[in-house]
């Protein structure tokens, strides 16, 4: 059973302007969902709201009827600005397991598995600060995965990666999804969305405009903004 | 690393922390002379009581005692001592000993005070010559004595030649040595002072420069926690034969530095005092 995400009258306002919403929707598909839209549309806000990390939120966000802010520990989140801790590669990933009582071997096994899943083969004892941009993204993915989340939310995960790194990343995502993890990610790269997504949430100007399966969205966009976006005009 | 830290933290308290003790507020000049270092251990040996001397300027010593932070007070300024007792802060003031002040100055003595007939004459000569004078200016016993001398001479010293350090005797002597200035100092500090430079002892022996010390017990009725019984033990010891002999036996550089006078000296004898002697013992 795929986890069910619900937005009920969700809105994000700041400085008198409405940045997102109001949005009401329900997402229960098991595959990979891409959140698409032009820059500044509100994709990051949508994902942050979905993960329950926004403070001043109107409305309710729930995963399987549990408030999103209370269930953060069951999800993994990749930020657009990749956070790097002042520790080794290993330490960065292990950090996500802080506050969990685990046997030393168990902990080591999970971290090793996360490294493999993310295809990060840098020396885990190296300071994380020494990693390249692409490696940092994979580190962030490993950290998101190490807690064995049911849901993985990724904010523009493959931005600034070269084609080879992007391909490897997408490959990882496919494998992870194949294991039953629900993946929700944002991108403005149409090609990437076509390659990965099973269904699409299209956001423009802070509004959720379309929610379709990928095939339907790409072949028969219904709304004006979606059409213009797909044609590269937005 | 942690172990080193624990060792450092656990450095043991000195043994004196466990004995019965009293706090004696006194002056830096008395402390610096070395008198306490010599006679107080004798007291501790006799009675098993530790004396913790807090040595500060006379004004501060009086203030500490007024706050009840000391159990006994030993300073050398009779008017302040009398006020202290009159206002109910202290009881049983006793004479213990006296020493004297001297005038020190540059070896060439530009004001020619060495030939003066009295201390008021000497101080007038300094004022007239315009030579530099270093004063403590800190409300201490020495400073108050200095002010008495200026008053007796009918002068109020001000001007670029009158330097007020606001500090202890040592700092003032340092300044006097550096600037070849005249200054008033107690004999004990003078003898032990290590940085005399161009300074020499130029005038002394006038009875007006007599410097009596009084021991006062902090009043237990006003300060219930004050250890008046221990203070009384020290007071009794200081005026006893043993204590007075210990004081007389204290020498600085071969000179007897303090003169015991528990019987009370005549405040204004006409002759020069036989103690402290001008010559070595």
């Amino acid at each position, binding site marked *: 059973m795929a986890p069910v995400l619900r937005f009920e009258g969700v809105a994000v306002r700041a400085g008198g302007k409405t940045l997102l919403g109001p949005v009401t929707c329900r997402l229960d598909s098991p595959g990979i969902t891409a959140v698409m839209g032009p820059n500044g549309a509100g994709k990051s806000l949508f994902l942050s709201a979905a*993960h329950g*990390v926004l403070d001043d939120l109107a409305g309710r966000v729930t995963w399987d009827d549990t408030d999103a*802010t209370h269930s*953060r*520990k069951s999800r993994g*989140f990749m*930020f657009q*600005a990749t*956070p*790097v*801790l*002042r*520790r080794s590669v290993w330490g960065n990933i292990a*950090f*996500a397991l*802080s*506050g969990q009582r685990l046997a030393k071997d168990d902990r080591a096994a999970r971290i090793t598995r996360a490294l493999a899943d993310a295809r990060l083969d840098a020396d885990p004892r190296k*300071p*994380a*600060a020494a990693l390249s941009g692409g490696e940092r993204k994979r580190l962030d993915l490993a*950290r998101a995965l190490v807690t064995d989340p049911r849901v993985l939310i990724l904010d523009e995960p493959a931005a600034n990666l070269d084609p080879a790194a992007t391909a490897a990343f997408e490959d990882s995502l496919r494998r992870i999804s194949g294991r039953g993890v629900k993946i929700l990610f944002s991108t403005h790269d149409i090609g990437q969305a076509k390659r990965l997504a099973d269904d699409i949430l299209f956001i423009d100007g802070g509004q959720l405009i379309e929610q379709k399966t990928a095939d339907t969205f790409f072949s028969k966009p219904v709304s004006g903004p979606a059409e213009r976006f797909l044609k590269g005009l937005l | 690393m942690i172990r080193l*830290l624990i060792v*450092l*933290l656990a*450095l043991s*308290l*000195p043994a*004196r*922390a466990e004995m019965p003790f009293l*706090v004696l507020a006194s002056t*830096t000049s008395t402390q*610096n002379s070395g008198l306490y*270092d010599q006679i107080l251990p004798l007291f501790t040996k006799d009675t098993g009581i530790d004396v*913790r*001397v*807090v*040595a*500060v300027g006379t004004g501060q010593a009086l203030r500490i005692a*007024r*706050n*009840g*932070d000391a159990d006994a007070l030993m300073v050398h300024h009779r008017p302040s001592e009398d006020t202290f007792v009159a206002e109910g802060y202290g009881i049983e003031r006793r004479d213990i000993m006296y020493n004297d002040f001297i005038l020190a100055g540059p070896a060439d003595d530009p004001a020619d005070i060495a030939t003066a007939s009295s201390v008021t004459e000497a101080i007038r000569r300094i004022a007239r010559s315009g030579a530099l004078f270093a004063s403590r200016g800190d409300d201490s016993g020495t400073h108050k004595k200095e002010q008495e001398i200026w008053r007796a001479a009918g002068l109020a010293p001000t001007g670029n030649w009158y330097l007020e350090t606001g*500090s*202890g*005797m*040592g*700092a003032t*002597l*340092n300044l006097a040595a550096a600037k070849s200035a005249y200054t008033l100092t107690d004999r004990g500090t003078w003898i*032990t*002072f*290590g*940085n*005399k430079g161009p300074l020499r002892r130029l005038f002394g022996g006038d009875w007006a420069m007599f410097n009596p010390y009084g021991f006062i017990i902090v009043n237990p009725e006003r*300060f219930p*926690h004050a250890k008046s019984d221990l203070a009384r033990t020290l007071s009794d010891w200081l005026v006893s034969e043993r204590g007075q002999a210990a004081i007389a036996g204290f020498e600085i550089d071969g000179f007897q530095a303090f003169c015991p006078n528990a019987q009370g000296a005549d405040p204004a004898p006409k002759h020069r005092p036989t103690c402290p002697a001008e010559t070595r013992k």
Partner: protein
Amino acid sequence: METLRQAWMLVATGDAALLQIIGLSLRVSLWATLIAAVIGIPLGAALATWRVPFSGVLVVLSTSMMALPPVVVGLIVYLSLSRAGPLGDWGLLFTPSAMIIAQTILILPIILALTREAVLPLRRDYDMLLRSMDAGPILRLRTLIWDARYGVMTAILAGVGRAMAEVGAVLIVGGNIDGLTRVMTTTIALETSRGNLELALALGLILILIAIGVNAAIHLIGRFGRRYEVTR
């Protein structure tokens, strides 16, 4: 040269009085640093990471207090611990405990301000992650303090250095009692006032050596810590 020889002789002969004085200096300063660190490090980290109301006021206050003249702190502590003051019944005046209290107050602002400075750069990256993980306040503080540990260690050493070098506070509240509350700095003051300048200078040299040791440690820690610093 004579001064150096005197200083060396003092140390080499292991003069008991000198060792006792050095020991007391270390004891008072280290205890004060420990207490100030236990209070100041979590407080500094909290100030850096949480949007506390009036945090601006607190920050200005603590950085200003870093510049407090020690003699003023000593005076305030004396007035508090004096029998005529509010805490007189504790009977702590003219004891090493009073000196530890005074020095703790003196270096608490330093440790607090420097810890905050050390933790601030971490805020951006760690904040995101800690929120996303739903980390509780204790885990949050522990993580920040540990990952900023090189800066925090520098804060602690700065506190130790300041404590060992000050004389105004310990002089007033300790009373410079021989064998009980006499530390290196107050001994230097005493010997200077006695005109024993060579002895004072010799002690001063020992103090300078300790200060150099502390600062060398700070420098090495800084170099070591830079390995982990993240640049974008």
